């Protein structure tokens, strides 16, 4: 907390440039739009390039475990770029959630994920918030087989295996092609990051951790997920602001650029300023998680509080200031809106994070005057 580094390092800037170049070339809005209603939710070609060639899947994995020995700061920078492009790749489910959980239980499976040769998903609802109880809708039978159902698992369709919290508590690895596994895709609000309901019926799994260790692994994955998602939200907001600025500079109405109208200018200036503040919180969260700061829980809750709603607001302003064109399916603005809206729900809403934040910074919610009523 005393001396956080809130800047982007040169290495991080280089990483950003590489990721952006790949996404610009291979994942333009037209490609994302074309995939929306296809049966292949993820763009595995782009994912291979990012994960295997650029190595983004192993940034925060130590070198001796098959990764690049960087930190979640770098992972956060990748998320900013993924937020800008809403690229349909399983980064959140596999690299952020499953990898973090596996790292926390010292599993060897992390190596393949870090190399980008395998993808996994953490079988929890995407809306699970940091600090909430470990989901245990999957139970272990007397025969040691797993049964149960987990709803709203992100990036489930692309996963070759699942990291599954189960009663015990315990954490299992389950192959997606194991007997009894069903992955039922639901109609997602954000078709660039789909969710699915995962069911297990007497399915064999490999025990990864049990007891407190299993719980701690899931908790850490959710905390890192929430903290880093703020960077994706910053990326979304940044793209919305840039695109809108570009559009209102070009679009003429009443004989002048729409962006020369003062009300439009002031709204965009306000949005820019909110983005400046939100970015500082997202960087702070990434840095605090990377350093294992004692303030990391506060940093995560703060970042979600500020970034979740900003991304939604930025996308809503983008739609409005694009006028009719922003309401069309062909224009990518709605991709940002839908991503921003589901990100607002992911890992707890801004309001839920503020509730946690208030508790952590000693702003108690207990209301004596209500106790009487």
């Amino acid at each position: 907390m005393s001396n956080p580094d809130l800047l982007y390092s040169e290495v991080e800037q280089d990483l950003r440039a590489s990721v952006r170049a790949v996404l610009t070339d291979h994942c333009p809005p037209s490609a994302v739009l074309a995939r929306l209603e296809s049966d292949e939710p993820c763009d595995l070609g782009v994912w291979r390039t990012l994960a295997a060639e650029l190595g983004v899947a192993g940034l925060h994995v130590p070198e001796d475990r098959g990764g690049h020995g960087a930190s979640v700061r770098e992972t956060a920078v990748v998320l900013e770029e993924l937020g800008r492009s809403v690229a349909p790749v399983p980064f959140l489910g596999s690299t952020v959630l499953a990898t973090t959980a596996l790292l926390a239980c010292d599993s060897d499976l992390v190596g393949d994920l870090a190399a980008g040769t395998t993808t996994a998903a953490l079988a929890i609802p995407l809306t699970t918030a940091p600090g909430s109880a470990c989901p245990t809708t999957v139970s272990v039978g007397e025969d040691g087989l797993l049964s149960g159902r987990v709803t709203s698992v992100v990036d489930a369709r692309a996963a070759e295996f699942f990291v599954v919290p189960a009663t015990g508590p315990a954490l299992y690895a389950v192959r997606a092609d194991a007997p009894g596994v069903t992955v039922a895709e639901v109609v997602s609000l954000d078709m660039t990051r789909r969710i699915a309901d995962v069911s297990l019926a007497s399915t064999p799994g490999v025990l990864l951790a049990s007891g407190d260790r299993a719980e701690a692994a899931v908790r850490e994955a959710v905390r890192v997920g929430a903290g880093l998602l703020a960077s994706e939200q910053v990326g979304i907001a940044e793209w919305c602001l840039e695109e809108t600025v570009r559009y209102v500079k070009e679009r003429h109405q009443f004989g002048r650029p729409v962006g020369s109208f003062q009300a439009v200018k002031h709204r965009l200036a306000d949005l820019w300023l909110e983005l400046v503040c939100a970015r500082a919180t997202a960087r702070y969260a990434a840095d605090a998680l990377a350093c294992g700061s004692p303030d990391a829980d506060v940093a995560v809750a703060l970042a979600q509080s500020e970034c979740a709603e900003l991304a939604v607001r930025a996308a809503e302003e983008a739609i409005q200031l694009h006028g009719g064109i922003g309401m069309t399916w062909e224009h990518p603005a709605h991709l940002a809106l839908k991503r921003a809206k589901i990100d607002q729900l992911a890992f707890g809403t801004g309001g839920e994070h503020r509730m946690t934040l208030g508790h952590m910074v000693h702003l108690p919610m207990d209301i004596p005057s209500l106790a009487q009523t």
Partner: protein
Amino acid sequence: MDAEEVRGRVRDLLAAHDPLDTERVAFLRARFDAGLAWVHFPAGLGGLDAPRSLQPVVDAELAAAGAPDNDPRRIGIGLGMAAPTVLAYGTDEQKRRFLRPLWTGEEVWCQLFSEPGAGSDLAALGTRAVRDGDDWVVTGQKVWTSSAHTARWAILIARTDPDVPKHKGITYFVCDMTAPGVEVRPLRQITGEAEFNEVFLTEVRIPDAHRLGPVGAGWQVARTTLMNERVAIGGTSVPREGGMIGIVADTWRERPELRTPELHSRLVKLWARAEALRLAGVRLRQQLAAGDPGPEGSGMKLAFARLAQDLSGFEVELLREEGLRYDDWTLRRPEKVDFNGRGAGYRYLRAKGNSIEGGTSEILRNIIAERVLGLPTEPRTDSERAWKDLPR
């Protein structure tokens, strides 16, 4: 003409055409011919030259008798926008030709006004109409046209003189949507639906007899159309919790597990805003009824859009995990918007259009600031220059 006399006409109509025995269109034609379509229209054109306030009397009597109506929501553009304009600017021949099938719903109308490059600044439109003998030859692209794929006729504005300032070189036409060169393409929206269309006009020939109003006077004619559009908005009365707030409030009541203190504060605030807006609507209608409309109407659409957006955004948040889902992305072509029959995600996305369609909220704020508050206009650079010289 008073209420008793009007009731007499209704009785005569019902006596001659028993609604239970008469084919729907035949009954509607008879009703039109009896002057009971819109009583304030001239005799012979569906009306009786009677006060507008007698229309509810007719509607109530006919509804009580089980008579069919003309499904007004399906033909809203014809009734609300085309008809008053034809009445105000049409020739006798045009009025006779168009109004009857318009009102009976036999001919659906659509509106070809907005263009990709002329939205808020509608008068900047670029669709060209060039005179050729007794015809005009029209080429250009229109957008945000609902009902274009079912419409027989369109009201159309096009540029007939690019060498004069933009408001002065526009002419108003009735366009036959079945004419060669008219191509309608569905325009898909962020909801997955295609409520609207793009309409491409390629050398469409419109007889000069289908021009409404003088050449070059299209902007004034269009103002009549648009004024009638605005009057139509916000005119309906709803009970408390009658709108989107009712859906959200019921979810709150039925699903305690979704509640948090922060959401409670926000929900009650939204409830209060919804109720305040509803009361403002009640007050507005009381002012209208007292013959003193006041300027409040200008704001209703703006306030409704903001409330619908805030409420639907709140609803998705309230639902949490369920909010991650959508009901259906299938490309559909609905004839009417139904906010309440779909899921929260649909409401959220569709409500974004409320502040864009029919005048953006930015334009409405300009209108309130200038016409209600009397604030000065901004310096204009586009009013005096020839249309062809404007930057775009």
